C-alpha cells in the first residue's frame, strides 16, 4: 500500500500520503486527501486546446502566434508559475533571459519578502517534520490553515504524535491564533484566540516584546495587558516554537522590521522558528529557483545578461506604470487575483496564457494553451512551504502538453 502513495499538489503542504484507487478509466476513490485536494486531483479534463482569439487552432499556429507576440515585445512580462514544477519554472526563467523579460510571481504582493528573509538566513526556520516531532507552541498569525491548508493541523502542526511529542496535543502543544477575524483555525484554538483590530499587528508585536521582558504591554486598542503578559509567558516557555505567518500579518506590515524584532526577542528568551503559509503548491519553488539564478526571489528584469531588481519590476508596479508591452501568464489568473483597478492595464497588451483551466485571464488572452496540471497530469518536483523538496509522479494520463514542453518549443522557435 505504501508504494502506492501520491503527492497532492493542491496547496503548498504537498501531502505525500495520498492513496488513489483507480477504476477502469479514471480515478475511482481518493483516500486521506482533504476536500480541496480531492477536487484538485479530479480536476483533470480531457481537452487538448490551443486557442488564438478564442478560436481553436493547432499547436503550430498557437506557437507561431506566441513567438510573434514575444518577438514584437520590447519588455514582455512573464508572470505566474506558482503551480508549475521546478523544471517548468527553470525553463521559464531561461526564456525570460532570452527575451529580456520582466519576471515575477504573486509572491511580490504576498510572501516574497518573507521567503527572501528565509533563503538568506535572516530568520530562523524549520521543517514541518520538526514541527510535528518537537513543536510545543504553535502560532497562526494572520493565517487560517483550516481553510487554506486543511491538513496543516492534523498532519504537522497540532494534532499528530511526534517523536518528542508522544502524549498528544492536549497535553503537549499549545496552538494560538492571532487574527482580525475569528477564523475556523481560531475556533479550534479556543481560548488561545487573540482578536486584534485591523492593522493592529505591529502594536501587538511590540506589546509582546515588552511583555517578554516583563514590561507592561500597551496597545492603543487597549488589549488587556494581563492577557498579553499571559501570552508572552507561554512564548517564553516554548522549547520549540513556530510562527506560521499568513497574508493577514504580511498585509498589515509596512516592512518586515517588526517581524525581525519579534523573532530576535523571542529567540533571546526561547527558541522560535518561522514558516510562511505559502498558498500555491510551488510558489516557494519559484522564489528559490529565481534566487539561485539571479540572487532575487521575484520582481526581476533581465536586460542583455544583466539582472535588475526592485518593486518597479513587480507585476503590480509594471502594470501601473505600463512598462510591460506583452504578458506570458503561466498557471495564474491575475484578472481575478489582482485588484480590478490594477488588472485592467492588462487589457491594453497582448496576453499569452498557459494553464489547465478556463479563467478570466484565458478569456482575455490572444493565445491560450491548455497545459497539463502539475502533479496530477505531469510529474516533477516542487518546494513545500517549509523549503522541503518533494518529487511526484503523475496520477492520471493526459494528452495535454506539459508547460515545460511548450516553454522549450517557444525557446526553440525564437
Amino acid at each position: 500500500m505504501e508504494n502506492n502513495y501520491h503527492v497532492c499538489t493542491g496547496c503548498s503542504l504537498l501531502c505525500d500520503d495520498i492513496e488513489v484507487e483507480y477504476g477502469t478509466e479514471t480515478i475511482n476513490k481518493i483516500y486521506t486527501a482533504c476536500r480541496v485536494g480531492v477536487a484538485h486531483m479530479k480536476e483533470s479534463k480531457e481537452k487538448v486546446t490551443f486557442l488564438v482569439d478564442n478560436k481553436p487552432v493547432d499547436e503550430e499556429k498557437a506557437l507561431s502566434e506566441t513567438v510573434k507576440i514575444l518577438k514584437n515585445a520590447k519588455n514582455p512580462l512573464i508572470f505566474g508559475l506558482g503551480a508549475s514544477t521546478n523544471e517548468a519554472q527553470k525553463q521559464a526563467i531561461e526564456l525570460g533571459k532570452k527575451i529580456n523579460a520582466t519576471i515575477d510571481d504573486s509572491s511580490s504582493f504576498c510572501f516574497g519578502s518573507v521567503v527572501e528573509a528565509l533563503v538568506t538566513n535572516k530568520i530562523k526556520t524549520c521543517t514541518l517534520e520538526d514541527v510535528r516531532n518537537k513543536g510545543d507552541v504553535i502560532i497562526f498569525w494572520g493565517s487560517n490553515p483550516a481553510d487554506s491548508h486543511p491538513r496543516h493541523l492534523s498532519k504537522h502542526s497540532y494534532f499528530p504524535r511526534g517523536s518528542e511529542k508522544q502524549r498528544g496535543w492536549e497535553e503537549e502543544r499549545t496552538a494560538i491564533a492571532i487574527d482580525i477575524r475569528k477564523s475556523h483555525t481560531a475556533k479550534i484554538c479556543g481560548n488561545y484566540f487573540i482578536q486584534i483590530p485591523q492593522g493592529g499587528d505591529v502594536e501587538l508585536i511590540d506589546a509582546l516584546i515588552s511583555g517578554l521582558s516583563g514590561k507592561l504591554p500597551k496597545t492603543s486598542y487597549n488589549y488587556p495587558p494581563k492577557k498579553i503578559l499571559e501570552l508572552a509567558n507561554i512564548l517564553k516557555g516554548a522549547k520549540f516554537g513556530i510562527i506560521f505567518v499568513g497574508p493577514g500579518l504580511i498585509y498589515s506590515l509596512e516592512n518586515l522590521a517588526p517581524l525581525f524584532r519579534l523573532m530576535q526577542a523571542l529567540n533571546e528568551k526561547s527558541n522560535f522558528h518561522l514558516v510562511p503559509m505559502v498558498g500555491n503548491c510551488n510558489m516557494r519553488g519559484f522564489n528559490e529557483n529565481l534566487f539561485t539564478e539571479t540572487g532575487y526571489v521575484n520582481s526581476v528584469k533581465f536586460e542583455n545578461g544583466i539582472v535588475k531588481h526592485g518593486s518597479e519590476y513587480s507585476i503590480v508596479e509594471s502594470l501601473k506604470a505600463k512598462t510591460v508591452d506583452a504578458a506570458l501568464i503561466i498557471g495564474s489568473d491575475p484578472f481575478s487575483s489582482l485588484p480590478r483597478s490594477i488588472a485592467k492595464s492588462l487589457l491594453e497588451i497582448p496576453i499569452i496564457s498557459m494553464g489547465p483551466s478556463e479563467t478570466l485571464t484565458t478569456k482575455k488572452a490572444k493565445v491560450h494553451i491548455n497545459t497539463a496540471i502539475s502533479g496530477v497530469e505531469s510529474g516533477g518536483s516542487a518546494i513545500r512551504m517549509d523549503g522541503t523538496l518533494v518529487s511526484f509522479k503523475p496520477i492520471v494520463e493526459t494528452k495535454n502538453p506539459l508547460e515545460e514542453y511548450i516553454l522549450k518549443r517557444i525557446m526553440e522557435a525564437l
Partner: protein
Amino acid sequence: MTNAMEIYQMLPKTNCKKCGKTSCMAFAVALMTRELTPDACLPLKEEPKYKDSYEKISSLFKPSEGATETGLIVHEDLCFGCGNCVVACPVNVANDPYGVGSGNAPKNTSKLILAIEEGIVKARNVDECRRFGKNKILCNGCIVTCPVEAIEFV
C-alpha cells in the same frame, strides 16, 4: 444543531399515537435517540400539509445512516476533510499509532473509527468508540478539533 424540542415543533402535534409512542414529544425523543425514523409518523409522511416538515426532518436524520446504533452523526456537507478528528481520536491513535496517530495515511485500517475518503470523514467500527459500551466515557476528541461541528453525538 437540533434538539427534541425543535423536532417537536415540526411534528403534527396531534398526539395521534400512530407511531406507537404516547405523544408527539415522545416521538421526537425517539427520533433523537434513533429508536424510530421519521417514516414512523404516518401523518407526517402521508399528509401533504406536512410535506415541508417531513422533508426537513428526513434530511436532518439522513446523514446518520450507518451510524444509527451509536448516534454518531457526520454532517458530510460541512466536513472539510482536514482529518483533525481522525488524528485526534484516541482510539484511532491507539490502533494505528504510526499511521493516523502520526498524522499520516492509515497503515492499519482494521479498527479505525474515522478515516477520510473522497475528502470527507467516514465513520465505521463505531462500536470501538469510547462513548459506547460498558465502560463509556464522554470523550469529545473528534468534536472539539472540528472547525465546523461536522461531527456530533445524539
